[in-house]
């Protein structure tokens, strides 16, 4: 049993005109202690909704979320259960996830100020320890957020989560608001934290390249469903789902060789009206007839890989014939 388990999670939200949009349409995911799992996908694929559902910020319409063997409750008006406080979230934009009107030290101290797990005399020391842990100078504690850079703020956001002594942190695009030189600092910090503190992490990102350097395992999400999960190295070496392949091909190479990345045709469809069969079929270069009607399940391939694609129904699947591809156009 994993520390964080998402089983067939569905998240539905309502548009202003009343239409129900299944942002997450049945996704399953496991994260173990000390493990970093990357969740990648394009904008609007539902990865942020999944992250919020994982910590109970939005209700799940169907499926279950369990943390440490117990179901995660939706955050209501009452204080969050103590047992769930070891499951934390870090938001994307450190300009919005920190209160502009409180010193950062006070905000880092929130977790123990709320839970009374620490005598007041030792707050200072613990805050200092956390700041040191995320690589920030200790004198920052008395500053206000506007005096900090984006990278420093994101470290504060991480320190705030760490103060709750978490077993699991869900990170929603924690790197994308940062400058590239700072991005690497924070990425390395995450790796260190997972290793040293044995914290599990679910790292949501649209940047496959950075996830590769950080995550042990990677899950690829497309239009509300997970299409492939695999150990990161294997996923890069031999992506099995055509969408994963497309994501990898689209990453530009910073080597000065003038290599033009490959574009994926079409656009991500409206999640309120997903395509029939395999959701990826309108953009898939290997589309086959059955992709239009039959929904591929996420099935095991080998010990630790899962893929949802008709190409891999049998472990050694035949490549599609050209005439089949024409059928779809």
């Amino acid at each position, binding site marked *: 049993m994993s520390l964080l388990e998402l089983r067939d999670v569905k998240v539905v939200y309502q548009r202003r005109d009343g239409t129900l949009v299944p942002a997450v349409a049945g996704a399953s995911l496991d994260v173990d202690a000390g493990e970093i799992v990357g969740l990648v996908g394009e904008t609007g694929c539902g990865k942020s909704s999944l992250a919020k559902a994982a910590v109970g910020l939005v209700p799940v319409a169907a499926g279950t979320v369990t943390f440490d063997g117990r179901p995660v409750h939706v955050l209501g008006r009452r204080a969050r259960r103590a047992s769930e406080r070891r499951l934390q979230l870090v938001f994307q934009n450190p300009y919005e996830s920190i209160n502009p009107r409180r010193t950062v030290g006070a905000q880092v101290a929130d977790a123990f100020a709320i839970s009374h797990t620490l005598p007041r005399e030792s707050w200072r020391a613990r805050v200092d320890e956390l700041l040191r842990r995320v690589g920030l100078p200790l004198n920052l504690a008395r500053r206000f957020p506007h005096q900090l850079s984006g990278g420093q703020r994101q470290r504060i956001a991480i320190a705030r989560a760490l103060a709750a002594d978490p077993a699991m942190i869900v990170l929603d695009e924690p790197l994308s608001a940062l400058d590239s*030189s700072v991005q*690497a600092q924070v990425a390395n910090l995450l790796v260190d934290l997972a290793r040293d503190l044995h914290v599990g992490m679910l790292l949501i990102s649209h940047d496959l390249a950075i996830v590769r350097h950080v995550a042990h395992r990677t899950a690829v999400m497309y239009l509300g469903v997970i299409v492939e999960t695999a150990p990161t190295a294997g996923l890069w070496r031999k992506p099995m789902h055509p969408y994963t392949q497309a994501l990898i091909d689209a990453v*530009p190479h*910073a080597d*000065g060789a003038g290599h*033009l990345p*490959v574009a*994926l045709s079409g*656009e991500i469809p409206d999640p309120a009206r997903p395509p029939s069969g395999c959701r990826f079929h309108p953009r898939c270069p290997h589309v086959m007839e059955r992709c239009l009607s039959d929904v591929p399940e996420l099935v095991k391939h080998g010990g630790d890989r899962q893929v949802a694609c008709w190409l891999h129904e049998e472990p050694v699947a035949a490549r599609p014939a050209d005439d089949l591809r024409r059928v779809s156009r």
Partner: protein
Amino acid sequence: MTPLLSVRDLHVWLDTARGPLSIVDGVSFDVGEGQVFGLAGESGSGKTITALALLGLLPAGARTGGVAIMAGRDLLAMRTSERRRTRGREIAMVFQDPTSSLHPMLTIERQLTEHLRYQLGLSGKEAHLRAVALLTEVRMPDPEAAMRGYPHQFSGGMRQRIQIAIGLACEPRLLIADEPTTALDVTVQAGILRLLRRLCKEKNLAVILITHDLGVLSALADSITVMYAGRVAESGPTSQVMGHARHPYTRGLIDALPHPEAPDRVLIPIAGDPASPESRPSGCAFHPRCRYSRPSCQIAIPPLIPIDDGREMACPVDPFMASVAR
């Protein structure tokens, strides 16, 4: 061959509550016809301000210094009316965020044709036909229907294509693209990059590509200039600068990047935060973050010195010389 645009010793000061603030401090570069010139740098490096200075779109109270010669005229010394004629017709600009860069309440047709009619004096019908042609050119599906739409009805990638079509409308010779793909997904980004490359080739269009993403630059730019805190750190042909970076900042940026080809490489971050214009360090602005810095780096601003074939670099320490000398 004389370059299309030649910028020499560009300075920009912005007006702030605490007096003028130097944002761009002596930047020079050339952009050749049909070439993609890349301007790289992190936030606060002054790359966007450089572009806005060329177009004369700086915020009120800004001052400029230096020259920017395009077709024999100095863009920085033009009168307002002359500058307005230059905008759109000779230099067009595509901005970062396609959502906020298009007017949310005007139809695509209106936004595509109004400068055609004003700048080129086309009739409504001519402008309409030209606009449809432009949308076709940027590979917009169903251009006629798109003309009647509003920006919110399109995806980010499509909006960016519309922005490019607007930029190309009056057939400018130079297109400034400021982070044109930053707001887009990688899968969509690739499409925009290919579009820009094609336009460049087919129309002999010069492009200034401004981005913090070295991967994007590497894919598209013929030559690049890396800026840090308003000054040029290093410049030269892309393959040289990216393949054999000499300046510690450029090298640091490349090392900090995740690289899809190299397996299991660790990321080597640059310590500290990018310098902001408000608190630009003395001497070499990069010295507080540079592992090769010497005491002299804190005092003297390093001059930009030519190294080999067309490259320039502003670091007296030059710690990576050996790697190039071979």
